[in-house]
């Protein structure tokens, strides 16, 4: 298999803190790896090492087959990077920001202008292209930032929490852009605190916690690792909720959650489900919803780390956006 990104035993210390503590990664060409983890898990440190911005203390990494420390210049010619903050020059216009990158990459003035206009159109920024970017909204800056990382048509793209702080609409738009890039065959490494984002976009997921990879696999594989499935029962009559909860507790032996008119419990033995159905039938309780589903990544994360993926501060902004 061809790996566009490969890392072995990456370690980085800041004083006593081990930001990265022996991380292995492998991303096949054209795939999207989602790096999932809470704040301070080491996601950004890993991206910075792979994007040649930081030297690892231990371990090695290659992008497109080139060593990130020994052949950094070649790595840089293959990659695009979009960091956590929109890295655009606020004093320049959208066109000028993109043209600057194009010129730096050796394009002629005409070519860099053409490429800038093409990307602005693709990111719905054509109208704003002539304005200084300090007048842009947060979502527009992020889009311009992503456009800037695409000027050189990178084969490998690093997206470090690209949607943190974005409103839900901008987030969905960015997701569709990422899907488009993948259709073009670009390899993507995306870090996120949002479980849903990894679930939506990633082919493979690695979960970071305290500078280590604590789990990896496809979304489905990860969901299966907790060994549990989730049973959800919603009675037709809300008054039956406690009765259903009682039945579930009796049959499965665990206390369920009662949330939103629904009884939710994790099930380790699928054979318990028919038993629940029979008991409910006997009692004359009608269920409008009775489902056995895989646990969500949120639940997986909790099972793996013992703590929830923290809700990023960005969540708040959405409410007022």
């Amino acid at each position, binding site marked *: *298999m*061809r*790996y*566009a990104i*490969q890392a*072995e035993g990456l370690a980085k210390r800041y004083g006593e803190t081990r930001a990265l503590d022996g991380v*292995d990664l*492998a991303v096949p060409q054209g795939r999207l790896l989602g790096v999932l983890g809470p704040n301070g898990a080491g996601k950004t440190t890993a991206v*910075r090492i792979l*994007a*040649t*911005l930081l030297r690892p203390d231990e371990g*090695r990494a*290659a992008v*497109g*087959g*080139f*060593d990130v420390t020994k*052949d950094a*210049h*070649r*790595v*840089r*010619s*293959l*990659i*695009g*990077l979009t*960091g*956590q*903050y*929109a*890295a*655009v*020059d*606020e*004093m*320049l*216009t959208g066109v*000028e920001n993109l043209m*600057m*990158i194009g*010129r*730096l*990459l*050796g394009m002629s003035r005409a070519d860099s202008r053409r490429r800038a206009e093409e990307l602005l159109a693709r990111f719905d920024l054509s109208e704003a292209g002539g304005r*200084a970017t300090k007048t842009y909204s947060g979502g527009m800056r992020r889009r311009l930032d992503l456009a*800037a*990382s695409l000027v*050189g048509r990178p*084969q490998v793209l690093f997206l470090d929490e690209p949607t943190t702080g974005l409103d839900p609409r901008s987030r969905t738009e960015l997701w569709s852009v990422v899907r488009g890039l993948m259709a073009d065959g670009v390899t993507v490494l995306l870090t996120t605190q949002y479980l849903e984002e990894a679930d939506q976009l990633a082919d493979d997921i690695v979960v970071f916690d305290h500078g280590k990879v604590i789990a990896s696999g496809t979304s489905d594989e990860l969901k299966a690792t907790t060994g549990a499935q989730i049973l959800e029962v919603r009675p037709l009559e809300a008054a039956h909720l406690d009765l259903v909860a009682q039945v579930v507790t009796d049959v499965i032996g665990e206390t369920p959650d009662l949330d939103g008119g629904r009884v939710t419990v994790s099930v380790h033995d699928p054979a318990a489900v028919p038993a629940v159905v029979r008991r409910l039938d006997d009692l004359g309780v009608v269920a409008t919803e009775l489902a056995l589903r895989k646990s969500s990544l949120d639940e997986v994360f909790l099972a793996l780390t013992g703590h929830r993926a923290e809700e990023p501060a960005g969540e708040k902004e959405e409410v007022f956006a």
Partner: protein
Amino acid sequence: MTTMTTAATTAMPAAGRHVTPLATLRQTMTLSWRSLVQVKHNPWELLDLSIQPIMFLLLFTYVFGGAISGSTGDYLQFALPGLLVQNALFYTLSTAIGLNTDITKGVFDRLRSLPIARTAPLSGRIIADTVKQVWAFALLVGFGMILGFRVETSVAGLLGALALLVVVALAMSWMSVLIGLKASSPEKVQMIAFSTMMPLTFTSSALVPSQTFPGWLEAWSDINPVTHLADAIRGLMIGGEVATPTMVSLLWAAGFAVVFAPLAIRAFRNRV
């Protein structure tokens, strides 16, 4: 996981290992264009750059001029070269502010992730700031001439003064780069600039003849590099001794570069 060597055989086509000198030059020019084109969108920056020295020029000439030199005209002749020095020194720290803004906004990381010469972001900025220095010099001299300032030496003397200021500013920009790399925010840089440059220029012969200082201050003023630089610029523009103060200024500049260049380069390498 397969080994790294198999990955190497599937290497994607990429550019060469290093940046050619010609490409380095082009990238440097692109990045200095970037700093200069900002002026087009933010004319205030040029005004910031110009209004403060003009205000100082007017205030010092008309408020203190009579008291210091007996007449505003005499004082203007004396003070303009000193104000040019003060302004040039202040302005070297704009390199620090610009660099620090790039770092805190993430623009610096974006540039470093591109396949360009490592030095281009620094040299591009310094070239742009030198252009702005020349602009500020021309503006201040031009405005001074409207108020009645006269160059008493020659055009060569005037150009010599400009050249000396540019050389000293370039040497100082090593310190500026170090501050820009190390400071936690652009506001911090501004504070450092103000709290070092202000006392340094005021305790020199830039704005007043240092003979009136108390003994200890005069002793310091004689050491203060700003005094020597102001004397040299004054000599070049309105006459007086040139050789010694110019030599001392250049030695100070060289000393600055020798101390701060390695520190700045090390700080830059650690970032890279």
